[in-house]
């Protein structure tokens, strides 16, 4: 998989999405966005693309079609694509990788419009380094009858003027160099019905931990943040003081905090000599070229009295049970001895009576003999 070290010209091909439609041969689609519903996916290699974009992309396009798997690896959005169904023209995601002299990666994202209008289709696109992005909304070939009168591309409320139009698709080109260019871009196709698709361009998200990390006063705790697919430039840790977030300077407070940034996509924050004041939320921030992303971790500092209570409770239960078992044993042994004593007493009585009887019977026997 070609890496993204540095900035390169990479062309990502279209991500075909379907707007919610009532087409019969619906294919289940798994996308990042939950609002995505079923629809027919058509492979649309918009011939217009070549015409619209000035860069020579033809070779890459052909390559891309075959390399669908590598494409999905490559593209962060790749996994969101559905499996192709009986309709062979369905295509999920194509990604072209082309190395060029110039700096940026080329990314193209396309939304296919088909059928019925409904809620806007949303797409999340993750970028960690500068890229050239082309976003396009296009009509599926199946629906040429839909007349589109007006197409508008907007970033937020700001209208984008330069729209490249081809036969069935409308696209815009963006050069994303820093976080100003990130955001939500929407395309609205107005005709008899209105179709809307929204692309969210964002930096990779860092996941924190939902469950709090628990530690004790005087102990050491290690908090870990990972960024699996993208390698950030650096990491910063923040602790929350009231409503403020204060950066942790580990060189200044080196006997309290130790920050480890190796390997580059993982970071460890070690807090020594914990006190109650260290309790609260911590943030690990990954700095990418295009912006920053934070993950939240919670730390709870407890005293040793907290687990001591259940410990003592269980200890008491054990002692009580052992005592009960022993007392029951002593009690049942006493009963047993008592019963045996009575039995032996009876035996003695029997023996005595037998002896006396025996003497008489033997004497009678003798007499008889």
């Amino acid at each position, binding site marked *: 998989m070609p890496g993204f070290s540095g900035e390169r010209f990479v062309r990502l091909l279209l991500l075909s999405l379907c707007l919610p439609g009532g087409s019969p041969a619906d294919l289940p689609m798994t996308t990042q966005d939950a609002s995505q519903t079923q629809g027919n996916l058509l492979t649309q290699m918009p011939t217009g693309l070549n015409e619209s974009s000035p860069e020579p992309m033809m070779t890459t396009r052909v390559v891309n079609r075959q390399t669908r798997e590598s494409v999905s690896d490559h593209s962060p959005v790749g996994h969101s694509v559905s499996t192709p169904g009986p309709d062979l023209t369905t295509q999920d995601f194509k990604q072209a990788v082309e190395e060029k002299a110039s700096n940026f990666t080329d990314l193209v994202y396309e939304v296919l419009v088909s059928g019925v209008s409904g809620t806007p289709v949303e797409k999340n696109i993750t970028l960690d380094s500068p890229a050239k992005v082309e976003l396009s909304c296009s009509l599926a070939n199946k629906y040429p009858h839909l007349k589109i009168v007006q197409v508008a591309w907007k970033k937020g409320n700001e209208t984008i003027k330069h729209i490249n139009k081809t036969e069935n698709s409308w696209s815009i080109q963006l050069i994303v160099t820093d976080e100003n260019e990130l955001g939500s871009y929407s395309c609205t196709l107005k005709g008899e019905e209105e179709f809307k698709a929204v692309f969210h361009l964002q930096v990779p998200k860092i996941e924190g931990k939902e*469950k709090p*990390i*628990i*530690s*004790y006063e005087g*102990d*050491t*705790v*290690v908090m*870990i943040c990972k960024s699996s697919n993208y390698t950030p430039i650096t990491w910063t840790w923040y602790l929350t003081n009231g409503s403020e977030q204060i950066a942790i300077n580990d060189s200044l407070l080196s006997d309290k905090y130790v920050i480890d940034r190796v390997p580059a996509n993982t970071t*460890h924050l070690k807090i020594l000599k914990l006190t109650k004041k260290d309790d609260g939320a911590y943030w690990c921030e990954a700095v990418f070229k295009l912006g920053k992303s934070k993950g939240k971790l919670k730390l709870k500092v*407890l005293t*040793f009295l*907290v*687990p*001591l209570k*259940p*410990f*003592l409770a*269980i*200890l008491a239960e*054990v002692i009580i*049970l*052992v005592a009960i*078992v*022993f007392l029951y*044993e002593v009690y049942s042994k006493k009963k047993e*001895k008592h019963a*045996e*004593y009575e039995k*032996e007493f009876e*035996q*003695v009585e029997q*023996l005595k009576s037998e002896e006396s009887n025996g003497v008489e019977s033997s004497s009678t026997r003798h007499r008889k003999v």
Partner: protein
Amino acid sequence: MSHQVPSDLGYVPPDGGWGWAVVFGASISVGFAYTFPKAFTIYFKELQAVYSISYSQIAWITSIMCATTYGGGPISSILVNRYGSRPVVMFGGLLCGIGMVSAAFCTSILQLYICVGFITGFGLALNLQPSVIIIGKYFLKRRPIANGLAMAGSPVMLCTLAPLNQFLFDNFGWRGSFLILGAILLNCCVAGALFRPIGAAKRSVKNQTTEKGKEAPKEEVTRMSMEMSNPTYAPAETRTEEEEEKDCCEKINQYLDFSLFKHRGFLIYLIGNVLMFLGFFAPIVFLAPYAKHIGIDEYSAAFLLSILAIVDMIARPTTGIIANSKWVRPKIQYFFSFSIAFNGTCHLLCPLASGYTGLVVYSIFFGLAFGMVCAMLFETLMDLVGAARFTSAVGLVTIAECCTILLGPPIGGTLIDTFGDYKYMFIKCGAVMVLAGTFLFIMNYYNYRMLAKEEKERKAKEEDPKIVRTENEGRSNWKKETLQDGPELEPLRDEREGLKTEVNGTNEV
């Protein structure tokens, strides 16, 4: 044909009554001993992060724990021979508790090795062997059922301990969890308290009667009746008098019976089991990773293990009941060999299982086979050597098994790493177990024949009217006593001759 003789124990085991409380206590002890290392793996990630160590270094904790639990067997046996089961189990529970509580205050991985690995491991060893031993003392006719129920404690404890550990970790962190686990392990002391000593009770009765100063003839009557039912008692008395006169070999044998190595049945069991354990635990260890390897998600993979545990839980008592039936009990060794071979066949067929349904079917059959083998593991040893020598036998067997138990998963892991494919590990495990099963089957067939031969010789001797007659009278008295016991004796009636054979067997061998 290979049944335990009452005379071996010196008394008739109750086969019920307080015995069921003992079974309950034994299931708790056995459960903790087998499942604690497995359930402990939840803490690995956190400990790895805190102490900045690799996975293999952390995994040493459970390896040391397992090794100590099995390797401490002989020491356990010696202590039980000397002091009886109850004090040993209670001390073991105390040791486990102390080990985990001190682990809560550890500051380095080495201290964890010692506290969790050695101390807790040794405490678990002092729990495991005596629990199994005391079942043999309380049960004879229903011993397979009792064994099956006691061993069923292991999957039950696994199902409760694993989520409990997760809950403790989420709420108390790892230090607090270790502290509370220490308290939980103290419950082994409660289990130990249930292990009322048996056999020694008669001695106290005798003392009582002497203390009460009964008439002399009555004393003799009681003492004679006790001697008849407890011949080992009198020899014990004489033994204490003649202790200095014994040579050191006999003394050692009193604590740990090394003469077992001349016992044919014991050797067969030892070799077969040592071989079997080479492929016994590896499939469980690698089932979840194998499932993930073929593309199943993590939760479904974990669910496979749950299925295994549930089937295991049901299989163990059921196997006990089947093994107790009059058709199986005389030939229980064959049933054991069959279950080992069945287990091996499951592993050999596993690579053919494709997809999640195939693995579910495999898990069910594996759980069944695993439960069958575990339920009869100690029952068959008791059956071969007798309850009196079982104390030493179990210690010697566990320390021999210790090596192969520890080697099994790493060998499997090496196979997986070398070939990059899980199927060779399954083939190796399956082949080893089928081999062990066949070996045990053939050797036990030979053993049964030898025992039958010895029984014939014994019968021939008895028909000869010699001094043996007095002994026979004694035995016929026992016969009458046991006849009065009731219908449960039906399955054993045909094997009563076997009782004498067994005596002969243990005496000769």
